[in-house]
């Protein structure tokens, strides 16, 4: 099972990313757990400068933007 984390301090874009990720996971039947991380100290542990960021299995795959669902599918299944 993939560990998917969404890093964001609760801004509008962060929620957009969370929703988009959940939608792709359910439509593509990806076996994954999704966790939202809003604590700034925990976010900084990933060394990201712009939020929201998408972390899959401990690796930052995208930051500062909300990718399209096709790109998200690729980022989540890679």
């Amino acid at each position, binding site marked *: 099972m993939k560990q998917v984390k969404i890093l964001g*301090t609760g801004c509008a874009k962060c929620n957009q990313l969370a929703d988009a990720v959940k939608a792709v996971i359910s439509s593509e039947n990806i076996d994954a757990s999704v966790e939202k991380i809003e604590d700034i100290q925990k976010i*900084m542990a990933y060394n990201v*400068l*712009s939020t929201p960021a998408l972390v899959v299995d401990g690796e930052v795959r995208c930051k500062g933007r909300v990718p399209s669902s096709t790109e998200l599918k690729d980022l989540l299944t890679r």
Partner: protein
Amino acid sequence: MKLAGLAASAVVAWLLLYSNLEPLADMLLHVSGLSSATRFGEALHFFIYEVPKVLMLLTAVVFVMGVVHTFISPERTRAILSGRRLGAGNMLAASLGIVTPFCSCSAVPLFIGFLQAGVPLGVTFSFLISAPMVNEVALALLFGMFGWKVALLYMAMGLLVAIVAGMTIGRLGMERYLEEWVQQIQQSCSCGSEETGEAMTWNRRLQEGVTHVREIVGKVWLYIVLGVGLGAGIHGYVPENFMASIMGAEAWWSVPAAVLLGVPMYSNAAGILPVVQALLGKGAALGTVMAFMMSVIALSAPEMIILRKVLRPQLIAVFAGVVAAGIMLVGFVFNAVFPTL
């Protein structure tokens, strides 16, 4: 090659349309049977000329910035600024603030990330002040409504405020007013050097430009239409020099009043500018109006609340105070240089 052709024809179409907006507006008004000599006609003409003009300029500038952003990531900016000294570092930081992609919701991670990589506190603040204040939306709108001179002056003054405020904060040695855990991670990583920047095709870069336009223009167009609509009303109906007594250059207190009024307001430049333009036409002073706009954009209550997570109240107070003082100075200078626009 196909891409270059497409881009070139888009530019030509844009230029053709943009340079013919005035005759087009005249023609539309003529077709509607209204005369621009009537109040309603004048307001309508103002509206149908101004809205497309401002929106077209905004689209062009935002598109170009979207493409520029693909070259300059926050990580790259951080690598450039890491270890810079006060002075030159502040100038560099303020300038990079214009071109680096920045969203106020990322202010805190950015702030901490900069300190982590050894960017001095004062230099970090210069970036953090300039990035939201001297942004492409504000500049495009100023350019569209007041011409390039005002836009350029706004940019220069915004940079100056960011540089001087950042240097002041740096000189004051405010590091001890960072929250404890932030103090501990200062210079804790040698991050920054590993960033090489994504290799991107031009196709992808142009796509990012389009995405940027969708995001920004999609968000602000309504404010612009409403603002220009209100402005058109003022343009047509409010008497000349109506604003001169309240917001004119002779009323010195109008600058601090405008700044104070602007701090609690949290709005994008798009909504305020069109109204402001109309007020200027009725005798308000440019410096007062600039100070108002800068304080609305640069100092906002929500941003202070976010920053409270990493800064102690004393440092937030110094930050707000220094920036507000700088903006007031800009207001006074503008009023002295341009008593009337």
